[in-house]
C-alpha cells in the first residue's frame, strides 16, 4: 500500500469533483482541477517534509 499513491488518488477524485461542481466551462474546469490537484499533492508532500523532524509519538490505542 503506497501512501503517496493513495494521497494522489484522493486528490484526483476530490479535484475532479469540485472542478465539475464549481465550474461550467471546460477550460475553467481544467484550470480549477489542476490548481486543486497540485495544491493537495504538493501541499501534502511539503507538509510531510516539514513534519519529518518531529517524532511520531506513541501509537494510538485501539478504542
Amino acid at each position, binding site marked *: *500500500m503506497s*501512501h503517496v499513491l*493513495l494521497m494522489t*488518488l*484522493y486528490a484526483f*477524485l*476530490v479535484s*475532479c*469533483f469540485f472542478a*465539475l*461542481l464549481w465550474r*461550467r466551462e471546460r477550460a475553467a474546469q481544467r484550470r480549477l482541477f489542476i490548481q486543486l490537484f497540485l495544491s493537495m499533492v504538493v501541499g501534502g508532500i511539503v507538509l510531510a517534509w516539514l513534519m519529518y523532524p518531529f517524532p511520531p509519538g506513541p501509537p494510538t490505542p*485501539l*478504542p
Partner: protein
Amino acid sequence: MTSRESTEDERLEWSYEAVVAPLLGWLLPGAGHLYLGRRERAAAFFLIVLAAVVVGTQLDGNLYRIEPNRPLTVLGTFACAGMGLPYVVLRFLLSYSGDIVARGYEYGTAFLLTAGLMNWLLVLDCWDIAIGRKE
C-alpha cells in the same frame, strides 16, 4: 431583507423537481443531475462518488454508525449516510463495518467519509439547479 434579495426569492421556482431531484440525488449519486437533464455531469459524479466508496471499502475503512457514549459517531454517521443507497447496501445488506486493524483503515475511512460528504454537496447542487438558482 433587501429588495434585491426579495426579488431573487420571488424568482426561485418551487416545484416538484425541487423535491424529487435532491431525493434522487441522495439515493443514488448523480441520479438527481440525471433527472435534471445533466447527463454528463451525472455520469461523472456517479463515477467519482462510487470510486471513493469502492476504494474506501477495499481499504477496510470505517463505515460509521451511531454508538452510545461516542457523540462524534453521530457526525461520522451523518457524513457516511450521505452516500445514500451504497451506505444502505454496505451496512444493512453486506453488514460491512470496516476493519480497525487493517493497514488502510484510516485512509479508507477518509475515502468513505469524503464519498458521503461529496454526495451531500450534490444533493444541495440538485436543489439549487431545481429552484433555478444555478444552471
